[in-house]
């Protein structure tokens, strides 16, 4: 048997080592994606398993004229925009605080991870009861502090329901930014701050001219990652409001989920999911470009 030249073996070794992971990814990720693509070209209603005609792009044409699709897409933009911004702001502030020296800093750094470590379903249930109109602790606190005259039905009014789910999302997600940005802060050389101080920069000047540029790459990567995760997530909304009241908190992934899982219309649900994937692809490409750079 002819042996491969040493250079060839060296070239093949990474592929051989990656093969199990690539195979697993192919089976677990790419095969279902291809299956969803194929399914989206059919009228596939699960309780009519013997009638699955190929309909080409009909599901996509229907989707373009579906007002619920456009409305849910708009709500997804609010969900991602407001949710990720709030998490980022809170996480950044927490990272700056945790980067300072204080007595129980170690414990604070450990505790801040707790919301991130909890399952979304648990967080959804906890916030649902905290926000409960009659029995919730948030209304009780607001009433006792005299900040409101009567309880607020947070999850039953369209205006407050979206705010409530974004609040829960923020609580869940800000530790990700806090921990990531804290790691970034610790990587900024102290000499940069000393140089800025010699040049006459105050606290604000150091922040703008040293901290922010030093953290920029970490910020960009964390923001892109979190945008992808939040845009895809539906568990928190599903548990807290189910997309209601009415459809006030029904985002695009939740709409796709309800169409497929509850309505059993897998063909149309897959088309919705494919469109969401394509929309996210732009963000994914940005992230991949950053990661490879």
């Amino acid at each position, binding site marked *: 048997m002819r042996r491969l030249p040493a250079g060839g073996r060296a070239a093949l070794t990474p592929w051989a080592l990656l093969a199990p992971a690539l195979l697993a990814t192919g089976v677990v990720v790419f095969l279902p994606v291809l299956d969803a693509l194929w399914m989206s070209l059919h009228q596939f209603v*699960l*309780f009519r398993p013997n009638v699955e005609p190929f309909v080409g792009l009909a599901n996509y044409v229907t989707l373009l004229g579906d007002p619920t699709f456009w409305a849910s897409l708009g709500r997804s933009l609010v969900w991602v925009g407001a949710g990720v911004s709030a998490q980022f702001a809170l996480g950044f502030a927490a990272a700056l605080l945790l980067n300072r020296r204080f007595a129980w800093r170690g414990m604070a750094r450990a505790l801040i991870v707790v919301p991130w470590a909890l399952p979304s379903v648990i967080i959804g249930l906890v916030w649902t009861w905290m926000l409960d109109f009659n*029995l919730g602790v948030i209304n009780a606190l607001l009433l006792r502090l005299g900040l409101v005259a009567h309880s607020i039905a947070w999850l039953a009014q369209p205006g407050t329901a979206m705010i409530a789910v974004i609040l829960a999302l923020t609580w869940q997600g800000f530790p990700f930014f806090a921990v990531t940005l804290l790691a970034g802060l610790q990587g900024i050389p102290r000499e940069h701050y000393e140089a800025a101080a010699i040049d006459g920069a105050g606290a604000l000047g150091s922040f703008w001219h040293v901290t922010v540029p030093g953290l920029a790459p970490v910020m960009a990567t964390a923001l892109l990652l979190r945008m992808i995760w939040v845009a895809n997530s539906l568990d928190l909304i599903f548990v807290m409001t189910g997309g209601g009241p*009415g459809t006030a908190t029904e985002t695009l992934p939740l709409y796709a989920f309800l169409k497929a899982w509850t309505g059993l219309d897998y063909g149309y649900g897959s088309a919705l999911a494919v469109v969401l994937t394509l929309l996210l692809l732009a963000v994914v490409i940005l992230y991949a470009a950053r990661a490879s750079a």
Partner: protein
Amino acid sequence: MKRRNLLAATAALAATPLAGPHAASPTTVRWWYHFDDPKASPAALVAAFEKANPDIRIHAESIPWGGGSDYDNRLYTTLVSGAGPDCAMVKLENLGRLMEMQALKDLGPWVDAWSGKSDIDPNIWRINTAPNGVRYYLPVQYVVLYLYVRQDWLDAVHLAPPKTFPEFLRAAQAMTEKGHWGFGLRGGPGGQDFWATFVLGGGASLTKGGLVTPAATAANAWFIDLYREWKVCPPSAPTDGFLQTINNMKAGVTGMTIHHIGSANELVAALGNRINAVPVPRGPKGEGWATFGDGSNAVFTHSRNQEAAWRWISFLSTGQNNVAFNILTGQVTVTTSGARHWTAEPERFVKATLDSLPIAKVFPAIPATAEFVSTVWPQTTQKALLGEITPAAMMQIFEKLYFG
């Protein structure tokens, strides 16, 4: 069929550990169930059955409920993939879909030859028979929804439990004051049973055109006005679910709500004799609608152990076995012999259940019902409760779903 291959492969993989060691004799019957109380276990019933039937092993699998949709959709997907259980607990709202999937075994010949048939009330058989006259479901439990009332609150305002819609509104208004509401309306999932009481019991009907008649529209407007106009329901009502409505009763926030005997002991523990139950009020022409909460077992066509599965499910619907089963589920025995000595809940709740049977009804067993219950009803009703659409538009959406 290709695009189901992945689903089938996944389900087959999941089923492998079960199929492997148990595939040989004795026959293993896979049975899916859900009990509201996660601590309740059918182990004693399984042991009793296996002792009497040494040639059969029961593999009882508790499936998460998730408001009903988790259980239902797991069942549909495993059935489509061919890896479903041999038999499972099912509800009438799924009958249409399961019939369309041709997933249900006709139990008629077995039922006709079964000694326990005459021990089940003919009304329960009637409700559980499919529209085509076939018996796919074997009843195992039931409840009928009734009206819970705070008797002490009613006494304080010198009113009797309401029997008509005007009496209901008067009672709800009398009990509504700062921090208290007369009626705990359920606008979240499951609330269609509240709606049915007042709208289908108040003049609308689930027949073509029957949801958009003037009487139907008026009944629905009256229902929506309980929240919007008369404000006898908590502001959270549009999204309140089972837990909120029952907890509000327990906490003394609401004076009336609709549920069934399954929550009676919980409410008695919190409120004692202050909680009472009566049949739901009847509509203007004396009709009424008390939703029949059914629970049955079915055997599936793909099963290779159909006869063994039938022996297991018929065991569960027989005499004292059915009594023991319903003590676990918190519902009511379907057997006449068991009902005679029923002591699982205080007598007044059993009486309210039995008094409600004459107006006990179910939504039609067609595929649209499942979608109506899971998404269309809550989304549409919430919009009407919040004033985003009119009550008339709400009924037109329902009419379109059911009748095109």
